[in-house]
């Protein structure tokens, strides 16, 4: 019997200046493989199915347990993390493509800097006075903690932005991940003191009114973050805040 193999098609691009091309690989199958193991196999022997030597495939990855967010790519048409993409659960040939909403660096590597920049726009932090010892933080009920904790699990992978019809290089929409972070910081007793600033950032162009409620984000998020809930909650908060301000309160 022929040995079981894994077939993979990869969309490659040597640099932003060059055009994309597809390459196909066939590697030996082992139980428990994920897409990262497959890419490592290719690195050990970078030869295509046609027997042509090629370069190793560039991609981002670090933690290998879906907590750093680095390894997002499009796998069989669906944006997701490569490290949790088990070969056994994927139809073959497996296709790998880079996320399309971010500038390409090389092969499966893209530049997601915009995501981090957008966190600055909404001041996604607790403005503490300083790191000197001021005693414990504010008390918080276990219920609020259980509401906030899932929001703070966002790994900035960008998958929710990839599937968002409103997120692209000719709009400034911040997207679901960042809107959800505003909810997180506005839930915190200290963070709430600056909720106005964050809501105003969301009221500005590129903010929450750009959302078309396609609801793709919540279905794709690998961390199961309740993104549509966050968008609805922040939509209401922005309106309330804007009305209050208009009334001079």
């Amino acid at each position, binding site marked *: 019997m022929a040995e079981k193999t894994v077939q993979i098609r990869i969309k490659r691009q*040597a*640099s932003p200046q060059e055009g994309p091309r597809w390459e196909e690989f066939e590697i030996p199958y082992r139980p*428990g493989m994920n897409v990262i*193991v497959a890419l*490592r196999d290719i690195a*050990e*022997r*970078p030869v295509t199915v046609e027997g042509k*030597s090629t*370069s*190793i495939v*560039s*991609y*981002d*990855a*670090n*933690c*290998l*347990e*879906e*907590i*750093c*967010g*680095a390894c997002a790519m499009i796998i069989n048409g669906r944006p997701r993390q490569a*490290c*949790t993409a*088990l070969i056994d659960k994927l139809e073959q040939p497996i296709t790998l493509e880079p996320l399309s909403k971010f500038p390409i*660096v*090389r092969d499966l*590597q893209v530049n*997601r*800097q915009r995501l981090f920049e957008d*966190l*600055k726009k909404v*001041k*996604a*932090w*607790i*403005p*503490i006075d300083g*790191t000197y*010892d*001021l*005693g*414990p*933080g*504010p*008390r*918080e*009920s*276990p219920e609020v*903690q*259980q509401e906030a*904790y899932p929001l*703070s*699990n966002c*790994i900035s992978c960008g998958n929710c932005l990839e599937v968002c019809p409103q997120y692209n290089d000719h709009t400034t929409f911040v997207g679901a991940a960042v809107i959800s972070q505003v909810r997180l910081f506005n839930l*915190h007793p*200290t*963070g709430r003191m600056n909720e106005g600033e964050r809501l105003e950032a969301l009221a500005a162009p590129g903010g929450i009114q750009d959302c078309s409620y396609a609801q793709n984000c919540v279905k794709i998020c690998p961390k199961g973050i309740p993104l549509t809930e966050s968008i609805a909650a922040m939509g209401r908060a922005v309106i309330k805040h804007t009305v209050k301000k208009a009334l001079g309160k």
Partner: protein
Amino acid sequence: MAKNIIIVGGGLAGLSAAIKVVEKGYSVDLFSVVPVKRSHSVCAQGGINAAKNLKGEGDSPAIHFDDTIYGGDFLANQGPVKRMCEAAPAIIDLLDRMGVQFNRTAEGLLDFRRFGGTLYHRTAFAGATTGQQLLYALDEQVRRFEAEGKVRKFEHWEFLSAVLDDAGVCRGICAMDLQSMEVRTFAAEAVIIATGGNGAIFGRSTNSIACTGSAQSALYQQGAIYANGEFIQVHPTAIPGEDKLRLMSESARGEGGRVWVPRDGKPWYFLEEWYPKYGNLVPRDVATRAIHKVVFEMGLGVEGQQAVYLDLTHIDAHELDVKLGGILEIYEKFVGDDPRKVPMRVFPAMHYTMGGLWVDDEHQATNIPGLFAAGECEYQYHGANRLGANSLVSCIFGGFVAGPSAVEYAKTAAKAEVPEQVFTAEKARQEAINQQFYSNEGSENPFVIWKELGNTMTANCTVTRYNNRLQETDAKLQELGERYRRVNLSDKTRWANQAFFFTRQLGNMLVLARVICLGALARNESRGAHYKPDFPERDDANFLKTTMAKHTASGPKLEYAAVDTSYIKPRPRKY
């Protein structure tokens, strides 16, 4: 003169240092191979230690200090450990103020759980993703400073070397852009290294990909002393995998998880039987050796395999979700079973390096003037074995010391004008190394050499060590070093060339591997994580000493320094 400090590494240690430096009025240039939010610290699961004594157990920093020194088998210098344990409660308060979503008690206070090597509830936690939550809190503070122009980030840049002037003083760094591959030097009044662990030397470990130890090795080759390199922690419970050995945090046992293997048709809770006082929460070195004994000597691995059970099935599923959700998800995603319903199959895995760059007791200063180090990349807080949940606190504490120390140094050190030639020479040296790889015509594949490195290090330099095998390992490492000279880059392009970056790191891994191996060979005793069946006892008369490795052309030269035991007198370590 520009008032700036360079920090290399944006994990917990690097970010903590950055915050302190900015508070002292200096600006920071922050370098990291990955966006700092993706640093390895996000992997930490179980929690962070501080003797807050919120459970009415009478815990105190003094007991935390004693547990840490005893757990580390008395190899750590005691002054810094004492200060860390005393500072820990305020560090937790600060993290709490920064918005970390720690688990709470009904009264709204921080909840604490038990961890290995202690009898107290001393570990604060945010589900089972504590490292992620802590890192994000610091990342957010640093982003705030970045928005204010006080921090400049150089993400996707790799540190290559320190820029040393003729007097051997550190004047900046040389780094490479991981996209354009430009090599550049950067000046600074002081440099802090916070580049984390070195799991990649062992091939597969619980560490992230970026934990190569490459920066530490480069500095060692430039004259920095590397201390206690032979002390490598193997964590007792991880899920074996071909790309990574994924950790199942000690918090699983802290929350009541039990380790067993089937014997005579019944579960045998060997840790509970052998260690009635600490049970499943003996320190990691002890639990790991016990598992190896059960599996390799007694042949009792689950279904004849290299595995034991880690069992949570007796615990309420909702409680598990609230306290351990993150790791249960990892098990489900990678293994496919639900750990709420079936016991998990786990096995020990390389996890942490106690050894690292040598730093002084007070300032986190290396022996190179102007160069500081903090976090897992330095050696100072954990002696011969680290206690669970002590690393996160040591990273933050170390960063909090390193930041102000670097600023103090910058203010007081003599400011000679640094000739431009110091920078251009280092840049030329690094570019020449790069060019060498491009012109090499050999036939060796770097990924294959790496695999062999990992296999030999894991087999011979982890749980059980024999002198003859260590000698063979060193010979193998030298052979790999020879072959490395004939490495052929499959890809000779000059844009985002990952084969190239990896090849450079691999060279540094091979050098550091010898430090680990020869340090182990020379230490003829058993202490903490370092275990030699031929020398089963701790030998304080000869080895209550810090190993200090210095680089020479013919390999590491080992010297030894006395350990400060002024607070707690060494006593036998018997759990």
